[in-house]
């Protein structure tokens, strides 16, 4: 076989190996610019599948924070804007109040949601804003090079601003987001945590959250426990193992009692 034919065959093979992406994903902006092995694309594809399945591309606005979530600004063929660090939830609030028929998704990192923008998250929950918030929890500040986040745990020595791990006496305690929001005790909210190592379950969780918004029931929230091999400084196997370890601190969560 000529070299050309071999090449052609190989190209055909790789094309066959391409993952099937949701229809609302904008293929012209792929490959995406997340690091190899990052969890963000898993969350985004889960979300994209939900948008496809519910057929809501034309009503959805996708609002993203600064952090690695920024890299999703042109991920979808869905109306999108990025905003300042931590301020995505207020933008979502303003949009939804001005256009109650839209489906509004706020997508942030754990730094954006639980540190710099925590007051917005709590008050949006208290006001029961009819938006869906997705927080991607990778236990560090990914975009800025792996500093300690509010979610960084004690035996996680990889962060640059707590190199020996979180010393609770010195650095304070980490945050359990969904549990905290749930403790606010507002009825009829969808609050959950899922993880990227079970994409099907993650997708189902996101779908339930968005259905909650579509059914006009109020606030819905999903934390997605996610991989960050770059800042965890882990190879593929270690990344998967780390996530398993982190799940002990951040277990899947869903309190259905509150849903009427």
């Amino acid at each position, binding site marked *: 076989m000529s070299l050309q034919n071999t090449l052609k065959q190989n190209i055909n093979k790789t094309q066959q190996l391409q993952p099937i992406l949701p229809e609302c994903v*904008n293929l012209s902006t792929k490959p995406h610019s997340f690091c190899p092995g990052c969890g963000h694309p898993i969350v985004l594809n889960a979300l994209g599948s939900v948008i496809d399945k519910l057929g809501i591309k*034309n*009503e959805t*606005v996708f*609002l993203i924070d*600064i952090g690695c979530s*920024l890299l999703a*600004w*042109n991920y*979808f*063929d*869905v*109306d*999108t*804007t*990025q*905003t*300042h660090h931590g*301020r995505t*939830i*207020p*933008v*979502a*609030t*303003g*949009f*939804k*109040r*001005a*256009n109650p028929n*839209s489906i509004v998704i706020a997508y942030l990192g754990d730094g954006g949601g639980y540190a710099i923008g925590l*007051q*917005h998250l*709590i*008050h949006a929950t208290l006001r029961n804003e009819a938006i869906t918030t997705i927080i991607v929890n990778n236990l560090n500040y990914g975009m800025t090079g792996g500093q300690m986040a509010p979610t960084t745990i004690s035996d996680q020595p990889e962060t640059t601003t707590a190199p020996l791990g979180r010393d609770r006496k010195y650095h304070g305690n980490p945050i359990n987001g969904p549990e905290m929001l749930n403790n606010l005790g507002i009825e009829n909210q969808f609050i959950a945590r899922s993880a990227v190592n079970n994409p099907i379950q993650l997708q189902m969780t996101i779908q339930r959250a968005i259905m909650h918004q579509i059914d006009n029931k109020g606030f819905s929230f999903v934390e997605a426990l996610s991989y960050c091999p770059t800042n965890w400084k882990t190879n593929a196997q270690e990344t998967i193992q780390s996530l398993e370890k982190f799940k002990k601190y951040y277990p899947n969560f869903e309190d259905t009692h509150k849903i009427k």
Partner: protein
Amino acid sequence: MKEPSQKKEKQFLQGNVISAYAALNAGATNFFGYPITPSSEIFETWVELTGDPDKPHKSPITNEPIGYLQLEDEMASGFAVTGACLAGKKAFTATAGPGNILMQDAFSAAEALRIPTVALIVQRGGLSTSTVIYSQEEVTLTCFGGNGEGFRIVYSPSGLQEVYNYTIKAFNTAWKYRYPTFVLSDGYQGKMQGEVVIKEMNKNFYTKPSPILLGENRKKGISTNMRNCYDQEEEMNEIINNYQKDFERDSLEIAESETYKAKDADVLIIAHGIVATAAKDAINSLRKEGMKIGLWRPITLRPLDRHSLLKNISHKKQIIYVESALGQMARLINDEIVSGLFKRSTDTDTARNNFKKNTQIREMFRPAIGITPEEIVKFVQNNE
């Protein structure tokens, strides 16, 4: 419920109430805010105008239900305004001093994304929490707050009728040109009561808002994807240069100023906002004594009406800056004189020397305190 009467005759109203009525008559539908003196009555009046939030009143202009939301802080309020503007609504907020500082985060995002937010700023004292009363010390912050270049429109109304007229105008210019737009008033004008004619908006000036996200393109199947974070220096540089070109072009239409008895004047006062009304009274007294004195007033502090400024400052014996700040307005004007009169001239040095030789510049700066006509008269007369 209170409703602004559309009667043409004069009514006796408070400045902040007038601002809220103006917003309603401009077709604004959504208010987001956080209370702060001396601006709070704008929010409170809007709440009254909305009525029962479950059965809100409708905008007299768009016939849509109006609404409001009190948020957890000014960052949330500012960003919620950007969100509502993205959804295609004339949305606004009102704030002052430290609230203006916190909102700059949102206004710089609006600047970067060309979102036509409207903010009614009622200046209180400068220096952090300061007084809740009055100053003109939020000029620099309002014109240039944020890590940007000040691609914004800032109106400085002078007197209650102008508070009304320019608040209506602010919404329309914001949506026509897509820059964050401010009505920079002050605690005196916000709290004082006076006569004003609540007119209907001139429909010729009405700019209809349209959704920035989920708008026309979405209907055509094209998505809109926006961001204000870039990874290449060249990319950012090009965007800023293009914004600058737009801003220069639009400035020719946006910039406004007023002259008062300036034509034959040897002495020109430059003042803005409420201080300009005191300056006019002072000018009337001084003219009675035979002094040739006039006023040039920037109505837009950003962009400045360069052509009118340069025309009016030439051949003056004296220019007097009068403001309730340590030269925040004066700096804007001086910048414009340097770049307009000197740099643009074919013979820079001669232009500068001529101006300096022929024109004395005096500064009446009274930070965080009101200025009366009598004080201006005294200052003008005591020129050692």
